[in-house]
């Protein structure tokens, strides 16, 4: 009886796993097939088991558009947001969690409210603002508005508020000032939360579409999500190429996740967030 139940469980789980993996597998396999076969075979088992493997689609992507440029743009913008965001938000959260200053509690009470406002809601006024500043079509405009992030501040805050105060007290008595305590005592012990914020910021910003579409016009500073939309409408419609584009666009996310996975999981556990 028990083994039947176990078998049923496994069956269910494997089916679910296959359903979730299927689109990704389809994308990877499709990108490796001759373009002409992608669509006709997509309804058959051959969608997952190609007869022949070719990298022509990848070459196509590079020859049809300036893929390297878009990739660089995306990497540059996202890396800048992640790096600057980690610094700014961690400092802000530490100030909320540990320093005493007038207005702290009032300002902190606004943070959760800021978390629930989506970019779509403020896109238009923000657009006016950056137009007035003359920032359109720059890297700047894609980076600056996303550095300070209420959700990141909140994640850091929950970690810092639970950080053992005795360690900070000990460092103070040993003669360290607030900045040194933060950088030499708190930060080295906060790797999980830094990894969590880095991964989450990277994921959201890597897929950013609406804002870059609004504020950029040429390909000079456009990131991958806008490029893939344009590529999709670029005749002739070649599914193999689009899938190859997709694979190359997802690869950096996987890389980031694999690098930070160990800390990320610990961070998710310690800050109590769920995916």
């Amino acid at each position, binding site marked *: 009886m028990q083994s039947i139940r176990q078998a049923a469980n496994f069956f269910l789980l494997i089916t679910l796993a296959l359903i979730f993996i299927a689109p990704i597998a389809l994308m990877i396999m499709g990108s490796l097939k001759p373009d002409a076969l992608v669509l006709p075979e997509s309804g058959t088992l051959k969608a997952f088991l190609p007869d022949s493997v070719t990298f022509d689609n990848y070459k196509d992507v590079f020859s049809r558009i300036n893929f390297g440029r878009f990739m660089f743009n995306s990497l540059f913008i996202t890396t800048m947001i992640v790096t600057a965001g980690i610094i700014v938000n961690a400092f802000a959260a530490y100030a909320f969690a540990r320093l005493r200053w007038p207005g702290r509690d009032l300002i902190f009470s606004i943070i959760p409210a800021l978390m629930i406002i989506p970019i779509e809601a403020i896109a238009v006024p923000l657009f006016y603002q950056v137009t007035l500043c003359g920032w359109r079509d720059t890297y700047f405009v894609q980076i600056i508005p996303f550095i300070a992030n209420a959700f990141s501040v909140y994640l850091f805050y929950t970690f810092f508020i639970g950080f*053992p105060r*005795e*360690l900070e*007290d*000990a*460092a*103070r*008595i*040993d*003669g*360290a000032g607030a900045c040194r305590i933060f950088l030499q*005592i708190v930060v*080295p*012990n906060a790797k999980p939360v830094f990894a969590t914020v880095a991964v989450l910021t990277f994921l959201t910003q890597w897929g950013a579409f609406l804002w870059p579409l609004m504020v950029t016009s040429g390909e000079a500073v456009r990131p991958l999500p806008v490029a893939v939309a344009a590529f999709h409408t670029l005749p002739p419609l070649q599914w193999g190429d689009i899938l190859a584009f997709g694979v190359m666009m997802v690869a950096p996310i996987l890389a980031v996740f694999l690098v930070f996975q160990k800390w990320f999981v610990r961070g998710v556990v310690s800050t109590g967030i769920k995916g």
Partner: protein
Amino acid sequence: MATVDFHRVNKIYPNGAHAVRDLSLSIMDGELVVLVGPSGCGKSTILRMLAGLEEISRGEVLINGSRINLLSPQERNVAMVFQNYALYPHMSVRDNLEFPLKMMKTAKAEQRRRVEQVAEFLKLTEFLDLKPRHLSGGQSQRVAMGRALVRDPSVLLLDEPLSNLDAELRLQIRGEIAAIQRRTRQTTLYVTHDQVEAMTLGDRVAVLRDGVLQQASAPQELYQQPVNMFVAGFIGSPGMNIFPTIVRAAQDGRISINFGSRKLLVEPPREPAGFNQLRRYVNVPIYAGVRPEDFTCSDSVSEKNRVQIKVKAAETLGHETIIYFTLPILHTETSVPQGADRFRPDLIDTASGVSEMALRRPSSQRVETGSILTIGLETSKMYFFRPDGTTIT
């Protein structure tokens, strides 16, 4: 080497909580003073004010005669050992020990020399390259001590340093701390809630209650001459038994007191300390106290001072047995002194009308729960307290 003076020190938190009231206390050079009291009595706050981790709301703290109220922790040159050791988890033992020296910008060679010296002194040399998570509780404790001693502070502060250790290790480390302090003659302020720790370690013990210093004396004096009911009940394990009583004077001038429903005769040579003062409280409800070990065998006192009790519980500790019993409070005869039960509400339960009592017996006699025991009361060893809780002497 340093002296420490607290002069009418107060701590008032922004929410109005008055954590420490008018504390005046002087610590001599090389002395180990233990602050002891129940949790929330302000003892850690005092330590933190001395360390510079808490602001001093009112009053002055002096180290070597100079006012340190506004100095940073580092400028005060105090070192502290925390309850959870507070070792920096990402640093090796060596880096932990070096950290305070680095902050003081000590020369590299000197850093090395002092770290190695302290490590040898505390038998930590073989652990220098380990991270704190690889250390046992006792080793972590020694590293924490080392980090405090390495900079040769003027005052060493210890905040419940043993409370995270198991019983056996606690005893061992307690001995080590005492030995280290004796060797270094470091002026030390030690905070604990454990009165046994306080009594065994302190040159002097300062008992605190609700932010007010009750008494600061040598352990033996604290035990034998408590200034009030709180100190009497707090020191000792179990603490002094306290019960409401009333003093009666017979026509011939002899004095008797109540022990529950029994009248005990106070006659020479069995007068307690403050016997003459006691006469001033005739017919006034007051408190009496007797230490668990001061109940004697029944045959060593006159028949009038023998009492039968019913054993409520007995704890056998090997060399001795602690016997618990209750003593009825006679509302008809004695009204409980107004407001004084705030001193030890756990000891005097006016609602249930009994005082909880404990007595100590050698384990040679077997005692069953529920059995009746005859005990003797030596009135010369009893204490008496005014309705406000202060000792009648």
